[in-house]
């Protein structure tokens, strides 16, 4: 049947695969793997699954560089989310994913469905979601379009996350002109579950039922993955129908119903419907299990009449789940879904053999090998070439700039710059406390979420610098991993795994692929030395508008484990008289710094390099110091250097500080230079000797640079005053500018 159809249609298709985003060479591969020409329905299935978004065809070979194993890893990349053992019979489940293109044309729904999508990935594994984070990039908020995108994305993240009752506990927001037309919206979700509850997305067991639950299928998000695998253009507005529409209420019911079904062991396999919809869920579950499926498309509950089979198969309607169920458990599953008033439909069954066979109105409309559709796409090794800008920008020497005239004014400018300024305007729109487990919410280095079951806690953070990766992709990749894991270490948590979202330009362009490859190499090297595995993630290519690419932006989501939820640390100075110490190496650079960007309007120079061995020592030491309760506060040093971090610790604790730096230092560099593997600690005088001793033993530099006290940040250098700012002045600059800008 299928074969005859394909012959009839072969002439009419007229290289229709090109319109579906496939290359002639790829079409030839499909014909080869199928042993015949695909019919139009089959071609649609192939085209969505062989899109960049689903098949990772330009990134697969590079991603192999990542270390993905550790004694804790239960499930690495390849399933819906990574699973890491956290002891006591429990596991942490987490993943980050992009929703950049949808958010560029429809910010509210684009962001909301990004949150909904990553949420499904977590509870699909059987885990209770416990936290959301997000990493956002926009153009400068100095125009209506920029503010519209920011407002819409933030409202969409809150709209979905608040409604489903999972706290949004942390994230980051940065602004650069390169993200103007192509903002980045990366959403991360973290869940926890008893290890024995783990379910996989596998269609195992011949004769088992294939069940679709949740929302009805409509025409939204058709070919969303294809849209995500192209550059954006003026024409992208017309792709609004490729953006899905979220229903967080239905999403919330689906979580509860699915987790109840998993807990009662009523389901053999679970797979959410996200990118590429039913096609992806069917072919991936069959492919993973090495089975076949027979599916009756007539059974799919539709939102409207007249959907074509290819539309039903590629629709990305949200809030849908696929279950593989033993026949005797169907009635139990139906009871749960009836209570929550959710539709549940048997679509077909698992078969022997490896074919996915789709029936519609009594006829076979598609018959494809699951492995070919889900995993048969080519893996490309694109050409990479160092772009021209690279050497030119790195030859710039920031020390050639004149010394700062008014460092106090400069610090205020930095504190009120959109990248550094308080993001309370953003996170007060997110419910970051629901579930009453948030021990430390947004605004710190990482968020800390307690685990009621064990008395432990998880620290979670997202981090990545597009600017630094642009200036040096290999270094930027290393820094993203180092910074995210250091952020959780600052809270006292041991990093146990990361998930990554790799946002890059068009991989078919040698410069963009070079950036990608170098960044991945850097990340892989950092993971290897820091001994932290990558357990899942996502690649987003084609982040370009009108040929202009974004900064290469690898974003890392790190998860750390705190053995004692009661022993965690925040960034704020707590006690008058505490000694303030600078931990970590002295080397810093103004290359790629916030000072250079904000004061001089330049993105250039060489960022400070990283000694990953030292980074590891610093992180381990931070964990030990917090675990033993020796420090009152810990704050990572990042954008804006020592001066900004000191100001943040002062403001977070509502206390001033008196800092004395030695004469030998170049104060502009020492205070505004940026470098990795560093943190500011404050600690009671009585612990001072012990902490110094521990740092010496660990082989990490530690210098006492001042004391907590007063109501100002007072910095002297070699006896002369460098700057003095009152707390209220700094708070005004830091806290008010963002809401003023957005109103």
């Amino acid at each position: 049947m299928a074969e005859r159809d394909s012959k009839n249609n072969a002439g009419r298709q007229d290289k229709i695969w090109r319109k579906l985003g496939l290359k002639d060479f790829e079409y030839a591969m499909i014909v080869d793997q199928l042993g015949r020409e695909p019919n139009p329905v089959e071609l649609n299935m192939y085209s969505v699954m062989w899109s960049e978004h689903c098949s990772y065809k330009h990134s697969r070979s590079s991603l192999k560089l990542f270390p993905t194993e550790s004694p804790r890893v239960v499930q690495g990349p390849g399933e819906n989310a990574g699973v890491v053992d956290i002891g006591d019979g429990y596991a942490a489940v987490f993943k980050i994913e992009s929703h950049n293109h949808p958010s560029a044309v429809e910010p509210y729904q684009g962001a909301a469905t990004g949150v909904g999508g990553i949420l499904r990935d977590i509870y699909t594994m059987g885990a209770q979601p416990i936290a959301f984070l997000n990493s956002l990039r926009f153009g400068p908020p100095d125009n209506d379009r920029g503010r519209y995108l920011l407002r819409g994305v933030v409202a969409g993240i809150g709209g979905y996350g608040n409604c489903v009752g999972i706290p949004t506990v942390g994230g980051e927001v940065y602004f650069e002109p390169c993200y103007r037309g192509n903002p980045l919206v990366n959403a991360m979700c973290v869940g926890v579950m008893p290890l024995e509850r783990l379910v996989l997305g596998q269609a195992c067991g011949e004769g088992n039922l294939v069940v679709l639950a949740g929302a009805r299928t409509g025409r939204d998000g058709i070919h969303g993955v294809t849209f995500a695998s192209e550059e954006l253009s003026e024409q992208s507005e017309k792709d609004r129908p490729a953006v899905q529409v979220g229903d967080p209420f239905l999403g919330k019911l689906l979580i509860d119903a699915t987790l109840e079904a998993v807990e009662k062991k009523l389901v053999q396999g679970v797979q959410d419907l996200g990118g590429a919809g039913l096609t992806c869920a069917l072919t991936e579950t069959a492919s993973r299990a090495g089975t076949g499926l027979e599916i009756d498309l007539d059974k799919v509950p539709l939102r409207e009449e007249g959907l074509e089979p290819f539309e039903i198969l590629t629709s990305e309607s949200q809030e849908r789940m696929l279950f593989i169920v033993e026949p005797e458990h169907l009635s139990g599953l139906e009871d749960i879904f009836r209570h929550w008033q959710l539709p549940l439909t048997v679509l077909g069954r698992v078969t022997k053999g490896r074919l996915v066979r789709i029936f519609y109105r009594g006829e076979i409309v598609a018959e494809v090998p699951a492995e070919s559709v889900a995993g048969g796409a080519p893996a490309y090794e694109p050409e990479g070439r160092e772009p021209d800008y690279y050497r030119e920008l790195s030859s710039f020497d920031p020390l050639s700039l004149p010394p700062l005239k008014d460092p106090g004014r400069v610090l205020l400018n930095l504190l009120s710059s959109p990248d550094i300024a308080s993001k309370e305007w953003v996170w007060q729109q997110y419910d970051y406390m629901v579930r009453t487990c948030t021990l430390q919410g947004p605004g710190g280095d990482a968020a800390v979420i307690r685990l009621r079951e064990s008395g432990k806690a998880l620290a979670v953070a997202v981090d990545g610098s597009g600017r630094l990766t642009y200036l040096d992709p290999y270094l930027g990749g290393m820094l993203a991993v180092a910074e995210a894991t250091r952020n959780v270490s600052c809270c006292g948590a041991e990093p146990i795994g990361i998930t990554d979202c790799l946002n890059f330009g068009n991989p078919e362009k040698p410069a963009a692929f070079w950036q990608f490859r170098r960044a991945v190499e850097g990340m892989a090297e950092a993971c290897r030395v820091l001994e932290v595995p990558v357990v899942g993630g996502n690649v987003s290519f084609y982040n370009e508008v009108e040929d202009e690419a974004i900064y290469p932006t690898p974003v890392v989501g790190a998860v750390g484990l705190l053995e004692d939820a009661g022993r965690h640390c925040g960034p704020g100075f707590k006690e008058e008289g505490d000694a303030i110490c600078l931990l970590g190496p002295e080397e810093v650079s103004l290359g790629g710094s916030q000072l250079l960007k904000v004061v001089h309007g330049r993105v250039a120079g060489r960022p400070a390099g990283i000694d990953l061995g030292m980074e590891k020592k610093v992180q381990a030491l931070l964990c030990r110091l917090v675990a033993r309760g020796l420090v009152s506060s810990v704050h990572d040093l990042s954008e804006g250097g020592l001066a900004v971090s000191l100001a943040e610790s002062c403001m977070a604790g509502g206390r001033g500080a008196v800092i004395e730096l030695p004469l030998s230092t170049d104060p502009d560099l020492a205070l505004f230079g940026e470098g990795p593997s560093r943190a500011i600690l404050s600690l009671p005088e009585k612990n001072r000797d012990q902490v110094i001793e521990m740092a010496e033993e660990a082989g990490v530099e530690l210098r006492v640079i001042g004391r907590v006290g007063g109501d100002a940040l007072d910095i002297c250098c070699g006896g002369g005053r460098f700057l003095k700012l009152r707390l209220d002045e700094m708070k005004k600059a830091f806290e008010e500018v963002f809401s003023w800008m957005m109103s």
Partner: protein
Amino acid sequence: MKFGVIVFPGSNCDLDAYHLVRDVLKRDVEYIGYDRRKLGNFDVVILPGGFTYGDYLRSGALAARTPVIEALAGFANSGGLVLGICNGFQVLTEAGLLPGALCRNDSLQFRCRQVYVRVETNTLAFTGKAKNGDVLKMPVAHGDGSYYAPPELLRDLDDNGQVVFRYVDRDGRISEAANPNGSTANIAGIANRRGNVVGLMPHPERAGERALGSVDGLVLFRSLIGHLQDREVAGNG
């Protein structure tokens, strides 16, 4: 002494209320399904926060039409103690168990932050262990939290001592800046005339453990427990 927590489709602070009663206050607590037509034997029934039915029509409107609400009305009419938190407050106003309405925040945005509220009356079962004028720190997290009452209702509420909490600054002073949603007369929570049904937008169940930043919310629950204990003693004597 038994607490009940109603679970509507879309409730999401049910767990938090349940956890506080069971693990912090060490009292009996049970979930109550939205489709129950009989409540059972409870002393206090909590309507938790969340987004019932997605708040798609008006916040709380659809939940107010579920089977359990009829049973709840009977419970309230016979003097049972009912506490509606956030979305639960919205459900109570939609169900007609509390007067007034909750409208969109004046910022037109969802707001999650710590606020301060002042205890306006301590003659209720819900506030007996507080002093009038006590300032409590609790978080809010809502988009539709702006309490509205027309002038005549407002007068009634004041005259009958039905205003239970008002938004204030840290020092107990009423101000516009202290009001997170633009509510009428800085009202954060009210009671019905009989004083056995209370609704408030802030989350006392999120302010019950030091690790979460405040324990000021406990006074509500301790007041209820104290009231029930006194009643038991009185009943036995």
